[in-house]
């Protein structure tokens, strides 16, 4: 099957497909940002997408979440066609993401950041809002409780009334993931979650990613620069360069692939080895 590497266990290959991208091509004017991109994710996988700067990794995320419309190709989530859907509907179907440069609602509290993502699940409408009905109060309490749960997981429980923009950088990254989870995704797209983190923070992040995958039964696609993270937690990896896939495989194979080493990994991979 296109979009998947060789050598995965039959148990994994038997799982249902969550995301299927086939022949996706995207142009910015005359610039070919993504060419003939295939990717198939199965339930519960933790997959990495790597490549040098400008390889088109974030563009892939933007294509999946409807920020850009693919010029060609098909993108399907479970049984639904994602092409042409507005972003908020795609998110409501169960795909959430974080951003390369953190995009929190910086002037709002930590709690509100999470509760905003919960809005589509709020379960009450404008009339309840205007009248503050019983239903409103119940749902509101339920929402606060849920949000609190997410915040506790990310160690933010104590800081929920703080302004999001005032948190230290690492916590802001965590809050962004918490906010993404509050949208109740089945597929989580993490865009460089380890950017700007020191090795110890990266270790913590790896544990956290594993933990949320198991806890919320997620499929995770990860864009990352930091080899330490990618090589350690991803089950398999797709490598892009200039918008095209140049390698795909298990971390161990990708690391030894001469194309990859040449295009991107260079000394860093050698160091890790």
């Amino acid at each position, binding site marked *: 099957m296109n979009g998947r590497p060789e050598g995965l266990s039959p148990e994994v290959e038997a799982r249902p497909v969550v995301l299927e991208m086939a022949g996706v091509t995207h142009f910015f004017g005359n610039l070919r940002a993504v060419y003939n991109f295939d990717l198939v994710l199965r339930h519960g996988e933790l997959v990495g997408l790597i490549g040098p700067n400008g390889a088109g990794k974030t563009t892939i995320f933007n294509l999946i979440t409807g920020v850009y419309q693919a010029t060609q190709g098909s993108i399907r989530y479970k049984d639904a066609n994602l092409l042409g859907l507005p972003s908020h509907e795609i998110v409501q179907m169960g795909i959430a993401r974080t951003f390369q440069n953190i995009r*929190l*609602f910086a002037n709002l509290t930590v709690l509100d950041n999470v509760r905003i993502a919960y809005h589509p699940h709020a379960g009450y409408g404008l009339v309840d809002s205007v009248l503050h009905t019983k239903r409103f109060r119940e749902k*509101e309490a339920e929402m606060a409780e849920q949000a609190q749960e997410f915040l506790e997981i990310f160690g933010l429980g104590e800081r929920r009334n703080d302004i999001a923009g005032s948190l230290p950088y690492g916590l802001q990254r965590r809050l962004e993931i918490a906010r993404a989870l509050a949208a109740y995704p089945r597929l989580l797209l993490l865009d460089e979650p380890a950017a700007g983190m020191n090795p110890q923070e990266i270790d913590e992040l790896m544990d956290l990613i594993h933990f949320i995958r198991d806890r919320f039964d997620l499929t995770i696609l990860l864009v990352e620069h930091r080899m330490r993270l990618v090589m350690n937690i991803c089950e398999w990896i797709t490598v892009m360069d200039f918008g095209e896939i140049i390698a795909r495989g298990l971390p161990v194979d990708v690391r030894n692939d001469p194309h990859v080493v040449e295009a991107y990994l260079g000394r860093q991979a050698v160091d890790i080895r």
Partner: protein
Amino acid sequence: MRQRMKPSVTFFAVGLVIFVVIQVLLSVGLLNNYWRGIIFWGAAISMVALGLNLIYGFNGQFSLGQYGFYAIGAYTSADITYRWVRGDPSALVVVLVGALLTLAFYALLAVFLRRFYGVTVMTRFTLYVLVTVLAFAIAVTVGVPLLGPLFSTVLGALPTVVSQQIVFLFALLGGASLAGIASFLFGIPVLELGSDYFGIATLGFTIIIKVLLDNTDTLLPFPEMKGARGMIGIPQWTTWPWVFGSLLLVILVMRNVLHSSVGRAIVSVREDERAAELVGIDVATTKVLAFVLGSVFAGLAGGIRAHDLAFLHPQSFNFIQSFNPLIIVVFGGLSSMTGTVVTGFFWIFLLEGVLRLYLPQGFETWRMVVYPLVLLIMMLLRPEGLFGRYEIPFLRRVLPPLPVKAEPAAESAQEVSA
């Protein structure tokens, strides 16, 4: 629990005191008609500015169209009561039936459109315009002959004092709903534009409304509005309870909406549209919602103002005037309801009350020199507005208290993985 009740108790208690004090002052004649007018005007302009604060301060959509909706509310409700006191229920029936039908059609159309996907903005806009026209056509052709006599007899059977109040209520609601419908139709295509373009488009809207009002007797079939000469003969029905009640209603509705999930969605759009979209907020709908709600407030204020002044002139809704609510909102502090209300009253007190009365004869035009100066000084000394983001406790967001830690954070990821 008791502690959380407290701000609302204080709020309503203070409100009641203000209500009673002003009512008594009005009743014993300590406040003459001039000051009465100032207070009522202040309340009306506060409502208009609160609406704008919802649109601009909380939703981040820079709008200059607020006076257009204010004008729609004023003229609509004035026309209803003007005709009613002259024995003609047609305006009342058309607006009420038309507005109700429109709402029903909108609901049906929204459900219908949800079954399709990829319907373009202009298609939706056209469909909504069509059903609006249809609703009002039905109201005119079927509603008036059918319900007109009914309204006349039923309301006519009641004592005049009662029927008058009921008609006034309908007139206010009618004005507010027409403003809402207009803003909805205007908002669908225009809110998709970027923020600056939206501001310019709303400015255009205000100018269009002003031109239409100048020509109500020639372009539009409303000879009683008398075009650029100004509409006279509107019954002076606005009383302090109506003014106070409307303002209170606007404050409560706005507060409740802002303190809900809908309100958080509205604010998130102001903070970061793209991020809001990517956590699943329907940005376009949220913008339209805030815009319509803000315009409804303006329409309601228009009705209150029209029935206090008993005279409407298109010149009072020209585009220079349309900056007034904007100045009030910025002056009071963007996204501070307290600031908007206080500044709204202060604004009218200063410009129309104090300065007009106490400047020497012939110096009234100096008011227009004083207020830019005040604005300038203000912008230099306190750019975030008089109140910044301050809110009185009742309007302030009550954040849930931090939970008492019963057990150590066993849930937190580090410990689980450790």
